[in-house]
């Protein structure tokens, strides 16, 4: 496989795991705009353990995941006391605190970043992403998943039904933090280098967008969102120059045109985002859609039996 495709597969797998990390709190009604902070915790923990102690990858990535999960658990208690836009700002502030701390830490390389000795090829993130996907599907099929979704819809009634909603929210937030940390650890080893600039606010925004646009009602949503938004820019990278030369030919420009400016990809991405919000505010994949597909499948199976 070419290096280009290997890189895309790695980043796709990492983004899927990362998106699931944000999906879990969002599915309980808690917007988490601090994704990059959790990812940075996992990435730097893995990088540090690998660079300083030469620990094997499963250990560095595992510890990175636990660190992010424990931090998520600890900050969940104060952070989940805030609601709505304040919660969004609090999670955002958390990510800034993490970034600031790392930037000022000489041990972690400060603004210079850190190289990560142990390299992993694309297969490992892809396999891990497969397991994470199965895990999230399992989680959403349990009563815990049911109470997560109920909490999202109506906290007061969910509480009256006997659900400890605080416990559900804290667990979803902490498990989500751990998954984001796992994504970070895999990132560190896949790209052999970590620098704090790659865990900036834009990353937190993008991953939240993957989740919201993919759909927060089922575990299919983040998968679709992460895949779509990781692959679309790559698709545009090849399609856009062709479109430009086609347009140039249309208006009669004969001489070869240069490739379009890179920022066009982001314009198109932004326009698509707005279109999605208008046309499918509940996200690309909704529950009703899944139910309908399932119903069609089971009724056609019944017809075959009859």
């Amino acid at each position, binding site marked *: 496989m070419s290096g280009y495709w290997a890189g895309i597969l790695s980043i796709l797998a990492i983004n899927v795991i990362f998106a699931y990390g944000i999906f879990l709190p969002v599915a309980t009604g808690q917007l988490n705009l601090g994704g990059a902070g959790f990812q940075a915790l996992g990435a730097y923990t893995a990088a540090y353990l690998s660079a300083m102690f030469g620990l094997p990858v499963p250990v560095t990535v595992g510890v990175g995941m636990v660190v992010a999960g424990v931090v998520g658990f600890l900050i969940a208690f104060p952070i989940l006391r805030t609601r709505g836009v304040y919660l969004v700002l609090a999670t955002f502030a958390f990510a800034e605190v993490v970034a600031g701390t790392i930037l000022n830490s000489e041990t972690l390389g400060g603004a210079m970043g850190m190289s990560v000795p142990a390299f992993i090829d694309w297969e490992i993130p892809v396999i891990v992403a497969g397991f994470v996907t199965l895990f999230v*599907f399992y989680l959403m099929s*349990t*009563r815990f998943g*049911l109470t997560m*979704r109920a909490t999202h819809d109506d906290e007061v009634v*969910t509480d*009256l*039904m006997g*659900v400890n909603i605080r416990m559900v929210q804290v667990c979803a937030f902490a498990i989500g933090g751990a998954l984001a940390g796992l994504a970070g650890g895999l990132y560190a080893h896949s790209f052999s280098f970590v620098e704090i600039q790659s865990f900036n606010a834009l990353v937190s925004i993008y991953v939240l967008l993957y989740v919201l646009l993919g759909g927060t009602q089922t575990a299919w949503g983040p998968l679709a969102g992460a895949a779509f938004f990781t692959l679309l820019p790559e698709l545009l990278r090849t399609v856009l120059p062709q479109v430009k030369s086609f347009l140039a030919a249309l208006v009669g420009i004969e001489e070869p045109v240069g490739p379009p400016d890179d920022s066009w990809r982001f314009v198109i991405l932004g326009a698509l985002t707005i279109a999605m919000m208008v046309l499918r505010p509940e996200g690309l994949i909704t529950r009703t859609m899944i139910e309908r597909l399932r119903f069609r499948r089971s009724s056609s199976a019944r017809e075959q039996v009859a």
Partner: protein
Amino acid sequence: MSAPLLSLHAVSKNFGGLAVITDVSFEVPQGSRTALIGPNGAGKTTVFNLISGVFAPSEGEIRLEGQSIDALPSRSRIGLGVARSFQNIRLMPHLSVVENVMLGQQARAGNLAGMLTPISLFGRSKWRREAEDLLDRMGLSTYPGEVVATLPYGIRKKIEVVRALVAKPKILLLDEPAAGLNNTETANLRDFLMTISQSGVTLLVVEHDMSLVRSLCDHAVVLNFGRKIYDGSTRTVQDDPAVLEAYLGTRQAEKARTHAEADHVA
């Protein structure tokens, strides 16, 4: 008469300076079908909110089987046997019908193992089957997989009752269960509630449909402006001067009384 299952002792509730419930005491006997009635804004829903723990009383005490429940968090009360429905339907719009009902099982299934066992992954779990059976008995078996948001009002109203019932409560608090139902549906509901009552569940029902109240309930408590104005049999409730006045206003009540007396003379 048997001991009260639920009792309110001099309960008051203020919101800021606004006294919504004032010094209300009443008992709901074990196994009874008690109606809680009164004009709009009388405080009936607030009483339900106090019993289920959405709000804490400003004064007074609420007891279940003789024990004060005021210190119990709201989420623990359904486990002790207090389940309720809501006047404005409060089903989870993004959950399917059967999932909404399974949420009602939480108090019986919410331990760690219960939380981590799949309920919808491999075929039908026992919890799912139980929920589907109950929906079936309520005549709702055509809807289980559908998301609640799109269903008609009357159906959603019934699903709320099923969700409360699946908690296997000792007492069921129903807030206007027949509102928006047509005559046939109301009659069905009445029969269904009778069956529930006969299985030993105590009912406390807020309802405006007086014919349903009379045919279902034996005992009525009437509130007006947050105070109790009547506590007794449902048979005599409509003859009570204070109740007539609360519903009709002073002059209309006078008229109604003279009519009734004229009828007696004739």
